[in-house]
């Protein structure tokens, strides 16, 4: 029978872990707390009609009881090399996760969790798709932290020596987080939402109509000032929104190294802690938007086979903002051996020609479409001059895109950079390359160009080196395949100064192989 799942009062949180455990007794309460809104209709109903009060109360009791029964019937077991989850009130369901399939373990603590001294543990296994993650919501904090450590290093169940020592790599001040929020893509999205919203508010507020009734001639003056005030208000709201969103997700951001794990902590209300063994990092991307380039700032994203991509902001291991001159320092820790970053080779002039032609063709098509629309609406003159805008912008953008193009390969890594406005540098350890593809479109073939795709584990879109000479493309693909096999015996390359990247891997490539079952599920009815 399952033992009591409450937080052990004694010092050792690992005690009794190999037997079936319940979640923390506070779990059903937290679950109910997160569903408070669902009970609002019931309460409203009960208040409106006398007769319904009893029914509403009954439903409420049923809901609460259901939560507790579900909690009672849900247990987890950590035995040796697997984590087992048994759940289900009537139909029982069992899920088994082999520990060497675990990609990432996150801790999440909302306000209720912090009140109760517990944390939700979310376990991601390779394989993507539905059901590839398990959330144990919630477990006593101490026990959750112990579980996180145990899952990360299979077989190491005692609190290891290195688990306590943490080296902080990045710590962001609130000011930097606000800056990150203001320069993020979400800030742009907020702007897009805000425009129509403010217009709607303007329509609803009868200010202008009142003014017009009072003094029609004042309309022009007042109209201008209301527009100005509206603009200022929009700016303030946008700044607050963008900064607020940034603070909400990233407040108190730190990324540190604990043993061989990257630990990221962030969040204002929901505190999140993500742990990613660095040997599982498949791709690192350095992203620099135009604004951030002006500010000498970058963003850093790390992808593993467990990155689901569905819940991008929840489970991503990323540094939202970092000074550009510190990128290499962090990269050296995340991907030992990737630094110093090599000088990137320029792509052949044919690539520039191709970018220019493509940009001109696209912008001309856009201009033509615009002219047609104008012809039928306000007339071609003088509005038609607007078409010069996309055509004029196309050339400098294409030239910028060409200047951004660059790649380097060797020593176990491929570095590739591209993008005019949003410049992305991809750093890919070749140890993770699963297969290679070299492709060429008819236009590329005419200029003797080709693109290289390197496929890595997990649902990550393939990193690409675009528009290199055909021969070079084949050479890059071959190099990637060669070095992908080298790392199957870890000490084959590396000069001693390399930090061992495969320390936690009992089978060198086991973690790269999520195609075989990452979790098992069995269902039966009782």
């Amino acid at each position, binding site marked *: 029978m399952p033992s009591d799942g409450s937080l052990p009062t004694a010092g050792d949180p690992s005690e009794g872990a190999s037997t079936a455990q319940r979640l923390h007794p506070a779990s059903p309460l937290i679950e109910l707390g997160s569903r408070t809104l669902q009970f609002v209709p019931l309460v409203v109903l009960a208040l409106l009609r006398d007769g319904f009060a009893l029914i509403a109360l009954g439903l409420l009791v049923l809901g609460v009881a259901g939560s507790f029964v579900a909690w009672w019937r849900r247990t987890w077991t950590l035995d040796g090399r697997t984590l087992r989850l048994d759940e289900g009130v009537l139909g029982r369901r069992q899920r088994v996760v082999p520990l060497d399939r675990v990609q990432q373990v996150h801790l999440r603590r909302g306000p209720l969790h912090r009140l109760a001294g517990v944390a939700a543990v979310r376990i991601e296994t*390779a394989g*993507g798709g539905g059901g590839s993650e398990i959330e144990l919501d919630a477990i006593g904090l101490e026990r959750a932290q112990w579980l996180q450590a145990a899952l990360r290093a299979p077989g190491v169940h005692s609190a290891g020596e290195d688990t306590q020592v943490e080296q902080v790599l990045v710590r962001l001040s609130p000011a930097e987080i606000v800056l990150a929020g203001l320069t993020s893509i979400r800030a742009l999205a907020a702007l897009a939402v805000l425009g129509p919203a403010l217009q709607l508010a303007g329509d609803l507020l009868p200010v202008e109509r009142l003014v017009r009734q009072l003094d029609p001639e004042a309309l022009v003056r007042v109209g201008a000032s209301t527009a100005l005030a509206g603009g200022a208000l929009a700016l303030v709201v946008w700044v607050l929104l963008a900064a607020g969103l940034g603070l909400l997700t990233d407040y108190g951001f730190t990324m540190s190294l604990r043993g061989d794990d990257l630990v990221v902590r962030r969040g204002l209300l929901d505190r999140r802690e993500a742990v990613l063994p660095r040997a599982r990092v498949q791709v690192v991307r350095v992203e620099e938007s135009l604004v951030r380039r002006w500010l000498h700032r970058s963003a850093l994203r790390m992808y593993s*086979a467990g990155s689901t991509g569905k819940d991008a902001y929840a489970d991503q291991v990323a540094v939202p903002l970092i000074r550009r001159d510190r990128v290499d320092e962090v990269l050296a820790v995340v991907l030992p051996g990737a630094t110093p970053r090599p000088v990137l080779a320029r792509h052949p002039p044919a690539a520039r020609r191709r970018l220019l032609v493509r940009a001109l063709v696209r912008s001309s098509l856009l201009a033509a479409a615009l002219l047609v629309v104008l012809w039928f609406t306000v007339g071609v003159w003088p509005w038609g001059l607007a078409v010069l805008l996309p055509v004029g912008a196309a050339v400098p953008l294409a030239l910028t895109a060409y200047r951004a193009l660059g790649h380097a390969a060797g020593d176990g890594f491929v570095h590739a950079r591209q993008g005019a406005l949003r410049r992305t540098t991809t750093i890919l350890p070749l140890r993770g*390359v*699963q*297969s*290679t*593809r*070299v*492709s*060429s*479109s*008819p236009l590329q*073939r005419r200029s003797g160009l080709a693109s290289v*795709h390197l*496929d*890595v*584990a*997990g*649902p990550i*879109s*393939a990193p690409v080196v675009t528009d290199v000479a055909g021969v070079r493309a*084949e050479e890059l*693909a*071959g190099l990637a*395949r060669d070095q*992908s*096999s080298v790392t*199957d015996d870890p000490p084959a390359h590396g000069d001693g100064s390399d930090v061992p990247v495969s320390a936690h891997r009992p089978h060198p*490539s086991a973690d*790269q*192989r*999520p*195609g*075989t079952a990452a979790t098992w599920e069995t269902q039966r009815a009782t």
Partner: protein
Amino acid sequence: MDEEHEAGRGSTGRGPQQLDRRVVRAWQTGALLAVLPATVVLLVVGSMLGRLVDLPLLGVGASAAVLLTGGTLALLMPVAAHRRWRFELTEDALELRHGLVVHVHSAIPYHRVQHIDVQRGPVERLLGLSRLVVHTAAATSDAELPGLDAARADALRAALLTRAGVGDAV
């Protein structure tokens, strides 16, 4: 070049190899099956529109044009695609070369092979063909060999698994 010949036996031998010619028939069938419904829809919608704008032959004309061009392409493209298709078991990787418009050259190192599926659709079954799907840990890997003789597909699978180092387990 290594000398493991036990997996060779001609059927999986060295050098670039082509797909079975019967695959052309399978591809043509698939393409025609895609063209025909489009033609029917165009005929119905076109006729209705034609009655509105007083062009009674609009539907017939449009569907005939689509049937003609689509049908021609459906018959010719598979022939050309088959002519371009090559696969090869090189020393350390399975290499595929295919693609009419966009040329693709993919390579899957044997040691990255996770498992191999042999699939047979209804048309393929009629023609006695199999499709070999090689899986790696990456979702984006391109490793499908359509249109192999059923016996050859099984032999190829065995050869690939041997090279992947899991042959003993099979």
